[in-house]
Structure formats: structure tokens, C-alpha cells
């Protein structure tokens, strides 16, 4: 196994183990997502056609807000005892650190969406069972895009003033293209929008993911240079 994969697996295993033992991030993020879902449901519940039309917006707003909470925690834990400094000073390839953290965030966001999506369907009286594959692919691609943008920026926000405000302020505008494509794509899937096929929107998110992913991995070395 190459050093990259060894380090990647070690960091991933460490993060998953800590999370499985403490469950602090997963519990708070899922609970936050559930609370959001109820709030949105109270706010938007209407006739069946309206419910179908607002579902994409609710889903992607929930992904965005829960995702922001999740990525904010990514490196916060590494601050204790200067763990991140030790990690950055070690001969670990920095791309392995970023890749492991991105995977953890993707899993976290997808876990939240796995709870939220059926809950929204139940609360809004909408049957999403016929669109599982399409919706899953759009959500997965969006989660990847969000994690690729948010994870590298979260390391920089940790040491900054007002990190809790700074991170969403920076990440939200950057991921807007993903959100627009996700919302339009799922609207096309549910038949409430006729502009483009959902596959075309999914391809747009994929293009964004590739572009931003390359940028994030290219820049990460400089981001943690101090």
C-alpha cells in the first residue's frame, strides 16, 4: 500500500472511530436536520402540487445548513492539544489528510440526508419512491461538491476570528451553483420544472465537483503552509 493510502486509511479510521465512540457530531447534525425539516414543513405545507414544488428547495436548504454544521466540526476537534499542527508537521501527504476529511464529511452529509429525505416525504405527503435513483445521485453529487468546497476552507476558518460566521459566509456563495443545479435537477425529476432533463443538471454538478475538487487539492498545500 502506498504512503498516501496508508495515511488516508489511518486518518479515516481515526475519525470514524472517534465519531462512533462519541457520536457528538452525528447526533447534533442529524438532530439539527430533523428540527430544520419540521420547521420547513410547518412553513411550507400546502396543497399536493405546492408540496411537490417546494420539496427540492427544502431538501437542498437542509443539505446546505446541516452540511455547514458538519464541516465546521471537521478540524475543530484537531485543535485540541494542537493535534492538527502535529498532523501537518508529520510526513503525511497533505492530500491524504484532505481526502480523508472530505470523505468523512460526505458520509456525514449523506447520513443526514438519509434521515431527512424520507422524513420530508412523510411530512409533506409526497411519494418520492419512484425517484430514489435520480434523487440519490443528485444529493450525492451535491454532497461531494459541498464537502470539497467546505472541508479545505474549514481548516482556515478554525484559527480565524468569528469562525462560526466566517465559514458559512464563504462556503454558501461558493456552492450556490451546486445548489441551483440540485434544486432545478430535482424539480425536473419530480416534474415541476420543464427546462432541462435532470441528467443535464447532474452533469453540471459533476463538472463543478471536478473543477472545485482539482482546485481544492491543488491549493491545500498552501492553505496549511503555516
Amino acid at each position, binding site marked *: 500500500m502506498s504512503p498516501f493510502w496508508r495515511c488516508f486509511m489511518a486518518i479515516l479510521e481515526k475519525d470514524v472511530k472517534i465519531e462512533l465512540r462519541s457520536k457528538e457530531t452525528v447526533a447534533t447534525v442529524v438532530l439539527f436536520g430533523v428540527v430544520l425539516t419540521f420547521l420547513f414543513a410547518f412553513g411550507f405545507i400546502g396543497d399536493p402540487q405546492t408540496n411537490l414544488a417546494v420539496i427540492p428547495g427544502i431538501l437542498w436548504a437542509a443539505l446546505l445548513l446541516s452540511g455547514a454544521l458538519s464541516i465546521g466540526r471537521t478540524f475543530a476537534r484537531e485543535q485540541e492539544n494542537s493535534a492538527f499542527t502535529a498532523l501537518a508537521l508529520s510526513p503525511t501527504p497533505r492530500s491524504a489528510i484532505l481526502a480523508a476529511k472530505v470523505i468523512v464529511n460526505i458520509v456525514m452529509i449523506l447520513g443526514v440526508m438519509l434521515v431527512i429525505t424520507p422524513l420530508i416525504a412523510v411530512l409533506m405527503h409526497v411519494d418520492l419512491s419512484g425517484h430514489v435513483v435520480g434523487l440519490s445521485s443528485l444529493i450525492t453529487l451535491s454532497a461531494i461538491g459541498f464537502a470539497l*468546497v467546505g472541508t*479545505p*476552507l474549514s481548516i*482556515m*476558518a478554525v*484559527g*480565524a*476570528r468569528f469562525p462560526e460566521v*466566517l465559514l458559512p*459566509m*464563504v462556503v454558501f*456563495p*461558493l456552492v*450556490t*451553483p451546486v445548489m*441551483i443545479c440540485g434544486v432545478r435537477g430535482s424539480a425536473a425529476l419530480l416534474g415541476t420544472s420543464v*427546462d*432541462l432533463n435532470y441528467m*443535464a443538471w447532474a452533469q*453540471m454538478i459533476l463538472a*463543478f465537483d471536478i*473543477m*472545485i475538487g482539482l*482546485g*481544492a487539492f491543488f*491549493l491545500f498545500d*498552501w*492553505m496549511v*503552509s*503555516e
Partner: protein
Amino acid sequence: MNNRASEVTPSSKTPLLWIILGAAGMFLAHYLVFIYAPMESTMRAAQRIFYFHLPSAWLCYIGFIMCAGWSLRYLMTQKSEHDALALASAEVGLTFGVIVLTTGPLWARAAWGVWWKWEPRLTTMAILFLIFTCYWVIRSFGGDNSGTRRFGAVLAVLGAPNIFFVHIAVTRWRGDHPNNVGLEPEMRVVLYSCLLIFIIIFSLLVRLRYRVHMDERTAIALSRRLSRIGG
């Protein structure tokens, strides 16, 4: 000599020629737009907004691209000059962005009957403007330290690819933003003259802002040096 003090050597000369050119150019631009340019048959007087709107939009994009380019250079070299140039470009790009987002709705109201439309190019321009506003807010209120500079630089470099989405927005999403408008020869003269004048003003503003940032940094470095000597 102290590193921070020696890293900055801004030119002390006032770019008087550029200031005169820019000021005279603005008078000329107003003459060309309001008197020389022929009246457009459909949009009437509202079409004249276009001569300020389009050059501002181009220079806004150029400002953001320059900001991303200098930010990338700063990340690679960690040189204060590159960061100051990135910041100056973003500030001037934002200024032109304000002109675009002010003149655009004025034109939209006359053409479409609404101030704002969720049309792809408008939306993407607004997002791009938001990203660089965030950059400017971080740089203005985050304190001038290397962490904030790097954070801003990364934001600018990651934010710039959104320009790509602006470009594909019209071709792929088929919005109703005018594209490749056919222009009369006189209108073309006015448009390109305005573009040239705006380029002069843009360069002047970037240069002046860059000097302000570099002078500020020199002053801070020198005051730190003085306090060390005094202490």
C-alpha cells in the same frame, strides 16, 4: 533593514497623466453616449445604459480574474505586493460590479418590465459579486495577518471558476439576456470608446488602491520598528 519595511517600495509619483486622461475621458464618454450615439428604435433612451453597463461588466470580470490570479501568485510566493494587487483588483472589480448591478436593473425595468429576473447570467453575476463581497468583507474585518490573507486568496481562487459558469449559463441554460447584439457603426464607436475610457479609470483605480495598501503596510512595519527601538 526590517523585512516588512523593505518589502514595500511603492512609487511616489502621482499618476497625473492618467488622472487627467480618466477625467477627460469621462466627459467624452458622456458626450458620446448622450449626444453622439444614435437613438435605438426599440429601447429608445434606455438603450444608452448599455454603453456603461457592458464595459463595467467586462472590467468587473477582469478585476475578479486579476484578483484570483494575484491571489494564486500570493499563495505561491507569499509576497505582500501580490496580495495588495489582489485586494486592489477585487475592490475595483467590486466597484464596477456595483455599476453593473445598478445599471442592469434600470435596463431590465425598461426592457422586461421588472427590476430583476432569475435569468442565468444575472443570477451568476450576482453570485460572483457575492463571493468577492465576502472576500472584501473578510479582508476588511478579519485583520491584516497572513491567515486572513491566505483565507481570502483561497476564496478568490476557488471563486473565480464561477466565471466559467457565467459563460456557459447563456449557451446552456438559454436565458433571455441579450447576447451578440448587432450594433450600428456609430454605436460600436461609442461602445469601444467607453470601454477604453473605463480601462483607463480601472487601471488608475487599481494602481491607486495598490499604493494605498502598500503605504499602509509600510507605515505599520515602520511603526512596529519604531516601537521596538523605543521599547
